[in-house]
């Protein structure tokens, strides 16, 4: 008795397409619902908020634009990988599949820089009437913790979770330059008692960042999953080309459909989250 799944290569007489292709499309339909639910929640949260920041005033647009270009390019290399198999050019398939993986990894590296920038960016809420607040001329200042003057040989982590993480109960803080200027103000010393709240721009910070990390994080997990599948079909999975090329080509087509979907989600995430 054959254990092969029927109609995984040849079109099913009822649907007109192989079962594998119908399967991946139904999976993608469920993915539309997953992201759709999150987009819907985002709209509800945003329209229901009294104020909502413009993404481009907080997020790194050059990095996000670079990632858009990277993902679009990876979609082209993906479709070229599939087209190469259809044209019986296995060598070219390997080239385009490798390029797709490299671009996907590039996307994740850029994303790591983008996330890193947020997780090492702080907002300090100063105690009203404190000397530091008078000096700063504001109760809230954003900026970075200065490693060079942090003391303790720079061993202080910029991931400050509690007052116990502060070296000698204080931090050296470099405020962000004023809008339109690129010159960083000099570092100021802030004692624990001067600070009411010290928080980094993580998902816990506010609703905007909760939405930002949820949506981009889920998308990033999809990119990671795609990398695993792409790698499998580049390396061990590609052996099937020698024994059953038609079936292998079908698998790459399904992989491509998933990958283009990941690109498609980003096409909507980029303007709604970063630009508007």
């Amino acid at each position, binding site marked *: 008795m054959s254990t092969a799944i029927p109609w995984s290569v040849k079109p099913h007489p009822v649907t007109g397409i192989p079962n594998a292709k119908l399967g991946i499309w139904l999976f993608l339909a469920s993915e539309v619902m997953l992201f759709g639910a999150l987009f819907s929640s985002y709209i509800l949260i945003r329209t229901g908020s009294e104020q909502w920041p413009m993404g481009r005033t907080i997020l790194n647009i050059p990095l996000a634009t670079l990632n858009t270009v990277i993902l679009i390019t990876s979609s*082209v290399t993906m479709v070229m990988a599939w087209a190469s198999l259809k044209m019986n050019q296995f060598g070219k398939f390997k080239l385009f599949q490798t390029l797709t993986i490299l671009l996907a990894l590039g996307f994740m590296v850029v994303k790591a820089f983008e996330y890193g920038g947020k997780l090492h960016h702080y907002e300090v809420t100063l105690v009203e009437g404190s000397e530091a607040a008078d000096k700063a001329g504001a109760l809230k200042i954003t900026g970075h913790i200065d490693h060079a003057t942090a003391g303790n040989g720079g061993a202080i982590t910029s991931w400050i979770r509690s007052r116990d993480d502060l070296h000698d109960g204080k931090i050296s803080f470099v405020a962000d330059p004023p809008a339109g200027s690129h010159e960083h103000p000099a570092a100021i010393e802030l004692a624990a008692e001067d600070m009411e709240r010290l928080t980094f721009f993580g998902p816990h910070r506010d609703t905007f960042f909760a939405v930002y990390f949820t949506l981009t994080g889920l998308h990033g997990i999809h990119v990671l999953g795609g990398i695993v599948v792409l790698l499998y079909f580049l390396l061990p999975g590609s052996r099937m080309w020698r024994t059953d090329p038609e079936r292998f080509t079908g698998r790459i087509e399904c992989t491509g459909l998933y990958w283009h979907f990941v690109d498609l989600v980003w096409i909507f995430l980029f303007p709604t989250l970063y630009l508007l």
Partner: protein
Amino acid sequence: MSDHPPPAPAEAAVMPHGAEEVRAHLKIYLAVFFALGVLTAITVGIAYLDLPSKNLAIAAAMVIALVKGSLVALYFMHLIKEARVIYWSLALCVVFFAALMALPVLTSMEHL
């Protein structure tokens, strides 16, 4: 017993992509790539234009995203020429997606 002939195989209606057909599509893929790049530049450009109306900025960004998404779906995902069963599955998906997008509107209604 029926005398009707068996239905024609459905694959006849959906041409599998042959090598020649794929070769002819390569230029289209590159054209779509170029269009996606240009549309990305326009999206970013419009965002920095500071359009007078926020609704206009949202509409412009959404229209461009829809065009970009359609290009990806139609050409890279080959939806421009696909089996009917996929169109129907996606049509159902679109209905439920539209319902999801309408949910925030429903919450702001006083009554139905």
